[in-house]
């Protein structure tokens, strides 16, 4: 068997990890993350000969690649949030942590999934590192928009994992449907209400209204 399909899958999944790293220091590449995901899922659909996987690929492209980034962009402008990334930890240390997490997920997954076929195994390893990088982003960022972006990059990682697990029933469609729902809830309900009440979407402002100060 030629290793070509495997190589392309690697390239795309590795590209997602790269974009995850870029997300750590600027938010604007979020759409790119979704586009690479879409390409990766479409490639899996082609390689596995599973046409139903084109559906999540299309959804990722249209919704996460175009609609949500545009909506988020408008929210940012309307709320007048400054565009810089407010960090808890500096960008340098965060990137180093990210490298550490990626190495960790490679070590863990490649060893744990030794018996699985190589395509699934390495995509799972990549997916885990995307997931951990997303978590890292949510932990080290203060403002609500970057947390939403962090959460969506976690979802992208999960979709990559789910498509790599050959023949996985049900979950691809459902997880996509849920990411739609989650996106709507986040953007519609929270941001606008938080705007209504706080004139800010910075979580530190929220922290001041805690029920109990510790």
């Amino acid at each position, binding site marked *: 068997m030629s290793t070509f399909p495997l190589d392309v899958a690697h390239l795309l999944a590795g590209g997602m990890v790269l974009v995850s790293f870029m997300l750590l220091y600027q938010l604007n590449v979020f759409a790119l993350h979704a586009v690479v995901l879409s390409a990766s899922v479409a490639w899996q659909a082609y390689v596995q000969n599973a046409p139903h996987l084109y559906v999540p690929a299309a959804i990722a492209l249209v919704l996460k690649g175009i609609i949500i980034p545009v909506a988020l962009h408008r929210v940012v402008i309307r709320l007048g949030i400054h565009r810089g990334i407010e960090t808890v930890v500096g960008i340098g240390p965060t990137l180093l942590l990210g490298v550490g997490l990626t190495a960790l997920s490679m070590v*863990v*997954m490649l*060893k*744990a*999934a*030794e*018996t*699985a076929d190589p395509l*699934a195994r390495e995509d*799972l390893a990549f*997916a*885990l590192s995307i*997931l951990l990088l997303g*978590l890292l982003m*949510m932990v080290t960022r203060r403002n*609500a928009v970057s*947390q939403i972006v962090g*959460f969506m990059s*976690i*979802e992208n990682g*999960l979709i990559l*994992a*789910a498509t790599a*697990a*050959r*023949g*996985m*029933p*049900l*979950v691809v469609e*459902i*997880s996509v449907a*849920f990411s739609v*729902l*989650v996106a709507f*809830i*986040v953007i519609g*309900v*929270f941001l606008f*209400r*938080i705007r209504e*009440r*706080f004139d800010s979407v910075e*979580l530190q402002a*929220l*922290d001041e*209204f*805690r*029920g*109990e100060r510790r």
Partner: protein
Amino acid sequence: MNLSFEPLTAVLVIPAVTAAVLALLPSYWVAARLNVLATFVTLIAAVLLLFDRPPPGGYLFVDDLNNAFIVLTTFVAFTTSVFSASYIAHELEIGRLTPNHLRFYHAMYQTLMFAMNLGLIANNIGLMWVAVELATLTTVLMVGIYRTHEALEAAWKYFILGSVGIALALFGTILVYMAARPVIGEGADAMVWTMLIKNASSFSPELLNVAFVFLLLGYGTKVGLAPLHAWLPDAHAEGPTPISAVLSGLLLNVALYALLRFKMLLAVNPAALASGPLMVTMGLVSVVFAAFMLYRRRDIKRMFAYSSIEHMGIIVFAFGMGGPIANFAGLLHMTMHSLTKSAIFFAVGHIAQAKGTQKIADMGGLTETNPVLGWGLVLGVVAIAGLPPLGIFMSEFLLVSSTFARQPLLGILLVAGLLIGFGALFLRLNSIAFGEPRGASAEAKASYVPMFTHLALVLAAGVYLPPQMVTWFQNVAKLLG
């Protein structure tokens, strides 16, 4: 459709249909009654499942374990809906909620019931995950319903932490599928729990181990285990009190149930890591941590939220210890905790309404100003603290004695945690229930029936457990291994 023949579909269809109807119904008075009626019919369907159990299907199934959970869930859901009817009438009167909010609230209440029932009877681990996610989203919306600063912060925190937890759980679920695929084959069968448990002994143990770590962290967030609990006190304190009761009494259990299902998978595979010690550690940390946190609480609902963390810790500890006696104790404790904690929240809800605040400093002498509520709370706290002859004493006694027989050191830590929590609860109870009356004291238009029904059941279970129930729980304990 004839309900008596299809109880399995009924526990899903009734809440789903009612949710749709309630979303359209403008009158809150009718909606509250319909809510009670629907939860009651669901309860009947759940009890019928005990007698008429359909064979496992591809998506749904019932066995002794989830039947215990589902009867408990539907029962507490029913009594909470009765409490909720009188609670929201007061909220409407003082203008904290509008009729539009209530339409939304009732629809969400039934959606939550649907999601929890689906999570409990799902035979497909993907479907179970979806149900838990749906339950999380509905409760997020309900926690934020008052739209105050605090409520929004609580909802946001719950949403972020809950979603991250749920994302980790999905990754774990995918890994379980990966482990199952080489053995069972591609497709839907490799996610069906009854198929998984049959073949789990030949799964790749490394994949199962990694999967379990993710599942423990993921569903553990929803259970409220100690390092992952940060959402829980806020969500309990800021949402409407019926939701606090349902969160503490039911939703935590559903997440725990999901965790138990995966623990059973690992137990079948001899080469996989022992899940017990992990669960024991997290449980014990939660107990001790929450016990200390109980001391500095100034908000009454927040205090009982920490008490929920403590008790979920005890339950996870019990299931982590494993074996027939500890499992039995864990199961009994779970039932008793659900009943007692929701009874306490029923009392607390009316108390907060009568006093117009949730601050402990502004409450005092409740047994004088509102004797029924005051003594109800005293009884509830006596029960939750684990004094004899109430039900929680029995389960804690069983757990502590079996732990001392097997791991005396763990037993000492557990008892220390229990005693510290005990002290904190009575310290606060003393200032709330006795002494000079403090703060405003309006008459509470309360419905006492749900609260005292729960407390009576807890007392009855402490004095005498029917033998049928004992054999049932023993069977479940055996199932859990």
